[in-house]
């Protein structure tokens, strides 16, 4: 049982974080809170990917010596899987880009309605 938990808990925590973010995104009335929830949500996905990459007994995905490795056979299980790291670099970039656009739109909304609360915006629309 303990083994089962230790083997999985990382995935579960990611789910918890994702739920927190998703809850903030769909329930919170304040738009900045929604953006914060969005940030948490995306970070949790990154956490999931990085958990996929980790390898017991593996070291960083950077070769220990730079030169003279051309003819050496390298043991793949000694290094952490680098692919999810690459994907997540891209995902972080997307996160920042989305953050910028969302904040820009938020400022436009505030300029129009003078508030950031969703219910007040809906009230002022009518």
């Amino acid at each position: 049982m303990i083994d089962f938990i230790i083997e999985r808990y990382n995935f579960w925590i990611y789910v918890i974080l994702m739920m927190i973010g998703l809850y903030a995104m769909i329930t919170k009335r304040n738009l900045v809170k929604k953006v914060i929830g969005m940030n948490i949500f995306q970070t949790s996905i990154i956490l999931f990917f990085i958990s996929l990459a980790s390898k017991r007994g593996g070291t960083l995905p950077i070769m220990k010596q730079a030169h003279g490795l051309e003819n050496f056979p390298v043991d793949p299980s000694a290094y952490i899987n680098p692919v999810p790291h690459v994907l997540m670099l891209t995902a972080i970039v997307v996160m920042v880009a989305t953050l910028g656009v969302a904040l820009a739109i938020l400022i436009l909304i505030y300029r129009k309605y003078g508030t950031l609360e969703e219910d007040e915006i809906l009230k002022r629309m009518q």
Partner: protein
Amino acid sequence: MIILFDLIILIFVVICAVTAITVKDLLSAVMILGAYSFFMCLLWTEMGAVDVAFTEASVSAGIGTILFIAAIIKTTRRSKD
């Protein structure tokens, strides 16, 4: 991966996330989101993802928090929930 660190930091991360979405002052929420990013960065160094940690560190410390604060300056700091 160092399981002991992993567990502790995961707990920190969850605490920070919950606080960031429950606190009513948006500036505080944003600063706590910065702390959340610290812990995420720590988590990733702990799992060996140095590049991702590096990116997270530079993004959160360099740009993310400041963009939020700039946006809050242009809008408002109050929040109902």
